[in-house]
């Protein structure tokens, strides 16, 4: 199996008075391409910081990160932006759709940035909307969509350009039980159909249950790392 993400001795220290906060403390791990991984742990355990560092949204204090075969810690902001555009999709806890764009425009955002022609963009988004139950909602602005619908648009935005890796930060936290299950179905299907690697941070037992690998963080370190088929991986 190829490696989608690899971190070695990853640290994130926030300078703060009187004592610096060590949010991530020397995490080394690998995530295989096509895996469906949940990162769990209590608040402040370093889940979101890990996702942000892997996505190049914040730089580690020490250590290295590879996305595929590219080491990203020394990349410029511009190169990181290009890497995210080409290889990483984000799904956020509070959806974070752009309120001035319609559902369709939000979903095709990354395709637009990549310069995909309009007809091709529309075709891809409409097919995806059909697959994840958003047909008919294309022209609605985010304010006119339910939480579950908004999160599905956010997922569509994240996956439409076929990135190798989706980073999802507590994607079900603001959803009810049914919407959460529906969303997980969508993401699992996309994972299986396209081989997209998913890495979640979550508190949600349903997400942990559906994941094929569960990494548990405590105080910025990996406490456990287990395969859901009960084969455990050493931290």
């Amino acid at each position, binding site marked *: 199996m190829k490696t989608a993400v690899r971190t070695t001795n990853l640290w994130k220290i926030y300078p703060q008075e009187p004592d610096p906060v060590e949010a991530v403390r020397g995490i080394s791990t690998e995530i295989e391409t096509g895996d469906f991984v949940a990162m769990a742990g209590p608040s402040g355990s370093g889940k979101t910081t890990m996702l942000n560092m892997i996505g190049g949204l*914040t730089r580690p204090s020490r250590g290295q990160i590879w996305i595929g075969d590219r080491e990203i810690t020394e990349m410029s902001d511009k190169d990181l932006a290009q890497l995210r555009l*080409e290889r990483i999709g984000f799904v956020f806890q509070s959806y974070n759709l*752009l309120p*001035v764009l319609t559902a369709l425009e939000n979903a095709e955002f990354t395709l*637009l940035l990549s310069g995909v022609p309009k007809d091709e963009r529309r075709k891809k988004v409409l097919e995806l909307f059909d697959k994840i139950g958003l047909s008919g909602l294309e022209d609605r602005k985010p304010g006119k969509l339910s939480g579950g619908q908004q999160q599905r648009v956010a997922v569509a935005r994240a996956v439409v350009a076929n990135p190798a890796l989706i980073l999802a930060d507590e994607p079900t936290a603001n959803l009810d039980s049914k919407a959460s299950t529906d969303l997980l179905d969508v993401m699992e299907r996309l994972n299986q159909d396209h081989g997209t690697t998913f890495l979640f941070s979550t508190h949600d037992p349903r997400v942990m249950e559906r994941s094929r690998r569960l990494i548990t963080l405590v105080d910025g370190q990996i406490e456990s790392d287990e395969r859901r088929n009960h084969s455990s991986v050493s931290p």
Partner: protein
Amino acid sequence: MAHERLWWRVAWRNLWRNRLRTLITASGLAFGYLGAVLVVGVSDGMLVELIENGTRLMLGEVQVHSEDYLPERNMHHTIGGYGGTDLEIFISRVTSQEDVSGAAPRVYGGGLLSYGEETQAALLMGVDPDREPRVTTLLSRLVSGRTLVAGANEILVGDEMAEQLGAVLGDEIVVVAPSSDGSLGNDLFTLVGILDTGIPAIDQNYALLALPDLQFLMAMGPTRIHEVVITVGNAKDSPRIAGVLGEFLSDSELPVQVSSWTDLRPELAEMVSLMDASHFIIVIVIFGMAAFGVANTMLIGTFERRREFAVIRALGTAPIGIGRTVIYEGIILGMISLIAGALITWPILVWWHNSPIDLTTVISGFSVAGAQWRPVLRVEYSVQAPIVAALGLFLTSILAAMYPAWKATRVPPADALAD
């Protein structure tokens, strides 16, 4: 290209997210445009007023003299020398020029005016009563009496001169003046009119006689004149017209000097240049003030959208792309403001231009650099002022967007997403 359109679309829609704020900001810029154009227009109106009053009253916009007449104003240095020139032919040559609207000949001399026991030194000015009104308003400034009739030994004086002499209409005034032949000319002239120009230097010192009467008094033939005064369509264009006319007349055998009012009244010309230059300062000050307001509003908008900028960054937009959308907002805001500004400015400008505001009940007139300023607030419009103001407005909206744009590019995505 497609994502360029995306950024314009995002910028446009962002502006209308807070409709009231955008409208207030655009109104501020539009009124800044109105203010800049009107202030420049009023200033231009004052300039035109000063130039017109400085030139139309007596100076004219262009003057022709014998090349050695100025600055001493020697009475012997008439155009064409001692022999003079055929006046009709010379005036016809001058008025044949496209930009010349009218021309009138003059003779000058120094002399004494006596009435009863009073004697006053005076500048004697011989004018053509028919041609002079076509180039200056001097003869229209009569407050009593009538204008001159050539060959009737009549005189006009300023109201202050008449008061100093104690003369009234119909009185006979003795005029004594050195003649060109070395003798002392003297004669009686009937006071037929009294002038009030509002310029003390004229009202106290000048006496106007008909051209042939003064020529006769100074023993000068009818071909001899000191000056041809010319009026042109556009006073600001006088230096160019003087140059063209100078070249044209240099073909003749008469050595003449052609001067525009800017040469003859450099202090007035300098004042005009100063006021012209101040227009740019006015525009800079007005839009400089507006810039801080716009920047503040856009900065607030940027802070409110920190999270959105972070999301856009996370989706793969380079920092410069984020800054660009904020700049585009500034450009669109500038365009909206310019359209609104033009719509409110032009009707006011045209109305004010056609109906100057009369301030005579508030202030009286005064003279500046030898030119009388009437208490009338008039507006002149030019192509330059609206263009400069439009550029000022655009620069303001773009410059005001630059700092917020830079701040937007500096939003740390992870921190903003955690807010």
